[in-house]
């Protein structure tokens, strides 16, 4: 019997193998054929064993991946494709730029807000001191005028002046109150702005958590 190496290696073919009986009345079968048959079986068995160990290794690798799969699977370093790395890198750079831009914008806003605040406070201070000065000098003038006219005839005048002094005092108080209210409202709006920002930050965080 003869067969090609590539012929299908099946249990049936092995079981049904037939050999030519030897000639010249000797018992047994053709030795060459048996040797060839054994070689064929040996080759086939070798291939199968080889396939088997490769499959075993593959099974082990997949099993490991599944076992590690709970959170930290990952793929083999050699499986990471250079193009994928490049795509992810460009995405990361875009994210970096967005964050940097946002940070720069917030820096500029804060800077501007601080300058504006300093300006408002400076102006308010100047106005306050001007108003107070005015009130003081009016009061001083009035007092002077009152001293310069001790004449009983000018009593009516003096009363008028006193009324004016009283008026100026009230005016000064009103100015002070207004100024205080103005500064308080400024402080309040700064606080409101901060609260809004805080809520915004929290909302942003929540939305991040929910996506």
């Amino acid at each position, binding site marked *: 019997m003869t067969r090609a190496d590539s012929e299908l290696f099946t249990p049936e073919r092995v079981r049904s193998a037939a050999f030519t009986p030897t000639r010249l009345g000797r018992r047994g079968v053709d030795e060459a054929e048996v040797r060839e048959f054994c070689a064929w079986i040996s080759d086939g068995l070798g291939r199968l064993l080889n396939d088997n160990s490769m499959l075993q290794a593959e099974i082990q690798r997949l099993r490991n991946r599944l076992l590690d799969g709970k*959170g930290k699977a990952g793929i083999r370093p050699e499986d990471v494709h250079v193009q994928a790395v490049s795509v992810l890198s460009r995405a*990361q750079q875009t994210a970096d730029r967005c964050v940097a831009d946002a940070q720069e914008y917030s820096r500029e806003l804060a800077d501007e807000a601080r300058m504006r605040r300093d300006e408002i406070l400076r102006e308010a201070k100047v106005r306050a001191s001007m108003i107070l000065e005015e009130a003081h000098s009016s009061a001083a003038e009035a007092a002077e005028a009152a001293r310069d006219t001790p004449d009983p005839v000018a009593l009516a005048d003096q009363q008028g002046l006193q009324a004016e002094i009283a008026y100026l005092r009230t005016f000064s108080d009103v100015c002070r109150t207004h100024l205080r209210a103005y500064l308080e409202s400024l402080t309040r709006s700064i606080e409101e702005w901060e609260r809004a920002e805080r809520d915004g*930050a929290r909302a942003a965080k929540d939305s991040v958590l929910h996506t």
Partner: protein
Amino acid sequence: MDERRLKDSFARVAAYGDEVALFFYSHLFLAHPEVRAMFPVSMLAQRDKLLGALGRIVAEVANHDTLVPFLRGLGRDHRKFSVLAEHYPAVGASLLATLAHFSGTAWDEDLARDWTEAYTAVALVMTEAAAEDATRNPAAWEATVVAHERRTAEIAVLKVLPDVPLGYLPGQSVAVECPARPRLWRYYSMANAPRPDGTLDFHVRVIDGGPVSSALARTALVGSRLRLGPPVGALRLDASSRRDVVLAAGSTGLAPFKALVEQAAGLAGHGPPRMHLVFGARTAAELYDLGDLEKMAARWPWLTVTPAVSEDHAYRGETGTVADVIGRQVPLADQDVYICGSPAMVAATADRLRSLGMTQDHIFVEDFGWSES
């Protein structure tokens, strides 16, 4: 391992600059997507740190006396980022892939072996230091804000209570992370000597556009939870020195000095040195802690406090920079001068002191808490 070959290889790869770290992190995240969550959204600063650390390791690869302490510190410090021993092989694999990619045809088996050996050694030192540290300290200290005082529009003073006591030396700092800015850390000095109740004070100045400082000042109110890293920093009061001490503080650079003053108050032996604290700010309103400092000065006769205002000439006290005031007010012979503030303030003050004839060994500087975050 061939030291020359390793250094040449790194020089070739490092010439690609930021691309190298970009490739490395993308590779790592593709191979292990779960690791991405350990990093902030923007990786810009992170990439600089990676290249910096790699450069330093390669430069000192044969110099074990300096390299090992650096790596041990790095290993301990990475615990606060939730880095575990099992992350190291993943990082090593991506690092090797990155080096191979940028080495091109120069990459061969010898180089691969050199780098594998070097990385294995580095990872071993780092993981060992982390494991040792884990027997004594938590990875990070969870803490609660117990007081939050907004002293000015830009400055807040926080009192924080860690769940587990955090031991530190006066003058040291910790990295702080707040829930509003996950994965972003910023260093703050403890503004008090260790207290029996374990609370820590932090002086937080809002940096325009700085994500961590603004979140701490505005959103880390009472009840907020923070995470603190291990204490770091080498600013120390030299208790053995008999010289008088000048503390030059620019704005919230005051924080570590309050800790040093409190420490001095408790010194045994020949007692506290004479201390002169110069506290500088732009305007009088920004002398945010003057009330407390005046109380300390009233309580401890060896302490003098001089506030200085640089941008308000109508101010009734000392005007000018901290350097100006020290130059005018303090005789510098037999003094140790400690400086803490913005990098510009620290540099200007140190320059002035040197021009006044002070030698470098009596000038102590702390400025690493002033990054832009």
